[in-house]
Structure formats: structure tokens, C-alpha cells
């Protein structure tokens, strides 16, 4: 059998920005009930559930780090760019043949802004990662940003109460934007992870983007948020 080679990035180059509002041809299930995760994970059983999601996973650095750290947890990366998601796919194929681990991580080429509820049931996820999101600096492109008041409702929907969102950016304006949006959103509050939170420790060093920032002696800012109960419903119940 031909050995699967580790992919080389030069064969998978693609433009960094993609318009998430336009309709590229994606495969996505009509609903989470019909999603076949065994296509992604060779050992996936009916009682298993994907618990972590890396939104905009890029070349897969975070997933490669997290996969052996949480070997019992199924995790997925969403990536909108065809070649980049293809790279991650090939990367895991190669890793799995050389290692016993990495069977719990995979990538799906899709648009996270549109199709999260198609893949995940309400409250399914325990952790979500938004690492080095595309800044989309221009005001006319702000609606392409992955963090917005409208989308936070969807993130809150797929995350369980008590679930966590991890964010990182090397652009202070983007970090501030994310902090402002999450903090003002009634279903999230800022969270200081305890030392035992393994995921929090690898946020900066594990991704290609993060390593580049470190190499260039740049700065990264992190912020973590917890999904909380709806204060409005809690108050109504109280009255």
C-alpha cells in the first residue's frame, strides 16, 4: 500500500481571505441528526459526540496539539478554504498512519458562519476556539468578521452552558473587538482559566499563525469566555 506522505504547504497555497457571505459549494448535512461523523473519524461510534470545534482551523496546528492532549475527545476544525482544509485532511491521514493517536481529530471544509447548527445540536460543544481570526479591517468588511452580535447567538446555541470559547489575536483591535462583543453579550462572561486548563496553555504556541507571531517577536492577546445561563430567563423565573 502506498504510504501517505506528509503534505507540504507549497502544494496547498491559497489566498488568505474568502468571502463567507457568498455561496461556495459545500457539503453539509441538512441537520445534525443525519451527519455521518464516521467519514471523518475511523473509530467514531454512535454514542460518541464531537465536543471541540476550531473555527477557522487554518493548517491544523491547534488540532494537532490538542488531539494527543485529549485522546478521548472528538474534535473538528472548520475551514472555508478548499486547499487549506485539504492540507489538514492529508496531514491527519499521514499522522494517523504513523501514530496511534490523531484518530480523534479531523477537518471539514465549510462555512462556520452559516452552518454551525447543521453540524451540532444545541449545547453539544464543550470548547470552541477562535484563534487569529481574519481581521477584515475595512468597515465594509466588518460583516465578514467571525465575531459579531448576530453570530454570538449561534455560538451560544451550540455550546453547552459552562462551555468555553478561547480567543487569540495578534491584532489588538481585533482582540478588543472580540472582548467587547463577548462581554456585552448576555450569554457569555469573561473567564479566567485555572492553571489546569490545558487548552488555554497551548493557544499561542500551537498554530502556524501563533508561531509566526512569536518568531517576529510580536504580541498575542488571549481572552476566554464562559457560556452562562440566560440572565433574562433566570430573572423571569425568579419573579
Amino acid at each position: 500500500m502506498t504510504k501517505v506522505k506528509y503534505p507540504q504547504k507549497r502544494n496547498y497555497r491559497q489566498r488568505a481571505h474568502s468571502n463567507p457571505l457568498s455561496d461556495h459549494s459545500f457539503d453539509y448535512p441538512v441537520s445534525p441528526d443525519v451527519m455521518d461523523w464516521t467519514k471523518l473519524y475511523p473509530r467514531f461510534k454512535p454514542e460518541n459526540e464531537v465536543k471541540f470545534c476550531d473555527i477557522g482551523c487554518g493548517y491544523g496546528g491547534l488540532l494537532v496539539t490538542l488531539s494527543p492532549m485529549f485522546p478521548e475527545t472528538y474534535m473538528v476544525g472548520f475551514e472555508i478554504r478548499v486547499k487549506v482544509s485539504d492540507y489538514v485532511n492529508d496531514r491527519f491521514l499521514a499522522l494517523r498512519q504513523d501514530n496511534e493517536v490523531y484518530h480523534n481529530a479531523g477537518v471539514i471544509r465549510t462555512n462556520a458562519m452559516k452552518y454551525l447548527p447543521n453540524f451540532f445540536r444545541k449545547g453539544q460543544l464543550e470548547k470552541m476556539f477562535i484563534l487569529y481570526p481574519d481581521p477584515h479591517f475595512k468597515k465594509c468588511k466588518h460583516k465578514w468578521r467571525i465575531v459579531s452580535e448576530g453570530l454570538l447567538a449561534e455560538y451560544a446555541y451550540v455550546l453547552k452552558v459552562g462551555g468555553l470559547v478561547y480567543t487569540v489575536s495578534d491584532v489588538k483591535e481585533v482582540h478588543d473587538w472580540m472582548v467587547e462583543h463577548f462581554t456585552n453579550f448576555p450569554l457569555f462572561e469573561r473567564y479566567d482559566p485555572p492553571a489546569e486548563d490545558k487548552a488555554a496553555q497551548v493557544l499561542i504556541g500551537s498554530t502556524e499563525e501563533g508561531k509566526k507571531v512569536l518568531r517576529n517577536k510580536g504580541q498575542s492577546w488571549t481572552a476566554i469566555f464562559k457560556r452562562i445561563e440566560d440572565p433574562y430567563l433566570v430573572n423571569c423565573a425568579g419573579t
Partner: protein
Amino acid sequence: MSVLHYDKHTNSFLLGVGANLYQLSENRAKLLVKCGEAPETTEKEEPIKEGEKAPRAEGPAYITGVATCEGRVAVISNNKVVETFDRDFQRVASTVAIKRATSVQITDKTVVISDKAGDAYSYSTALTDRKYLLGHVSVVMDMILTPDLNFLITCDRDEKIRISHFPNCYNIHSYLLGHQEYVLKILLLSPNLLLSVGGDQKLILWDLSTSQPVQTLPSPQEDYITISYSPPYILACNSRHVTVYKLTDTTLTQTSQLVTDHDIIDVASSDSRVALLTREPKLEIYQFSEGVMSGKCEVEGEIDLSQFKDSVLPEKKKVVRTAGFAEYFERKRKRIEEENLKEESKQAHINLQEKSKETHLKG
């Protein structure tokens, strides 16, 4: 967007033709008021963000939606104007929405609109105090505020029906997922039953307690135009058919079908009558009894249907861009094939060398 609306509070139909709002009682049409006049800008218009301008009315003014509650009527127009009238059809309030509104709902405490950007906003009855409620990533095609005011239901071009709590719409209660194309219209049949039609030419009856479809019916003739509900009957319109279904428990059974001479634009129904607007343009009123439409008659009164303007909805069916990725995968396949061939020939070469070494040693 719908221009024909049954007003149960006055047992009459309201119809928007161009900028004119008409009332149909019995078979007579009466002009009520001209809509879409841009309000004078006052200081009370707060721009949505600092540094951004307050929205301005733009484009031709024609009615795209009507909603009613006991004391008020709300009208949305193509030029972004949102207005409310009292029951004497005196204008009570008006404002300019940020984007063109696609649906409107009104209660005695609030006005809610959805727009073509996919966002929903609420206003006070005086149309001040605009609050952002929720956002879809594509255009919101229809919207329902449940009568108990606990939920806001919105449907979009990305096949989704979203049920959010109200007024805390940031809290999504559930999704109804099953359509494979845009969801055009939704109707709440009871607190637990929702009906939807979509661009996939399906009519779906949903159980809201389980978020599952209980019945799916295919379209008798291509795309759906609209649906209407007069308990226990549902009227589903394609361009030339009106199919009537009776709802018993949680099952729909067809009771009759009517074929029209011209394309249907909109329909509204009460217990005893059905109003049909066709592309001639013509307005017809039918008797409606036991789920059967009959006794068609024309509408009398001063009504200038030539003013009718079709609401321009953004592209409904998705224009899928594949951006030449088939090429990328073809090139990749070739590259891997070449690499494998190279490997094989290298390996064959090494084998040959080993063999010749062996024979050399032996010899």
C-alpha cells in the same frame, strides 16, 4: 413579503398596490391611505453607530408588507419607510429602517421588522427605541412573532427556520432543519405546529415540541408562491394552483385544488372568503366554504391595479461558486500519481542494482 393581508380585527382584507393601501370589505375596495412618505429627519433618529449617518429613505415607494393588531396597522415599504396607522388610518408614527424590511409584525406594545440583511429589530409603538434583536447571515424571508409573545420565528435563504426567545432573541430556542433550499414562508398553525414552504418545493408541517417534521408534501406544480391559513384550512399557492388542505390533528389532507388563468402573486383568506391577486393584474374574491373555493367575483370600487409593483427580493436560489477547485484536485491527483511513479521507478532501480550486485558477487 406580502401585499395582501387578512385583518381579523375588522374582518376585511388589506391590500397594498404601489404606495396605496386599500381595504376590501365584502367585494368593495376603498382607498385608505398613501404610504411610504419619508418622515422628516428629526434629532430623535439615532444613527446605528457613531460616525455613521442615519438611514435615509431611498428607492421607489411601494408597499411590501402589512401587519395588524387591534388598534394599529403597520406598513413597510420598499423605500425603507416603516409606518404605523390608527384604525382611522391616520399616520401615527414613521421611521426609516436601516435596510429594506422584508417582514413586519405589530402588537400593542411593539413593532418588529426583519430586513434584507438578515437582521431583526424591534421598535416601540411610536417607532423609536430601535433595538437589535437577532441576525441571520442571509436575508430573512419571513417572520412570526408568536401570539404569546414568547418567541420570534425567522426563516432565511440558508434553509433555516430559527426559533428565538422573545424579547431575548440572543437566546436561540431551536432550529427547524429540513428544507434544502430557501425557506419562503412560515405560518404558525397552533402553539405546537408550524407550516413552511421552501424553494425545494416542499411543504413541511413541523412539531415544535420535538423540532421534527411530522409531514412533508411535495409541490403539485414547481415553486411555491405563498401560503395562507384559515383554521382548519391551509391554502398553498404555486403560480397557477391554489391547493387547499384540511388540518386534522397533525395531518394535512387535500380537500380541493383550483387552477387560475394567470400567475398568482399573493393570497389572503378568512373563514368565508379568499382574496387572490394575480399578475394580470387582477384581484378576485372567492367564496370559501368547507375547504372549497367557488363563486369567483371581481372587486368593485376605485382600485388602480396598474400601479402594482412586484417586490424585488434578492436572489433566492443560491448561485454556487466552485472557483475552479475541480482543477486543483485534478492537478493534485496528477502530482500524486507522478510522485508515486517516481517512487516506484526509484525502487525498481534500487532493486535492479541490488540484484546486479548479488550476481556480481556470486559471479
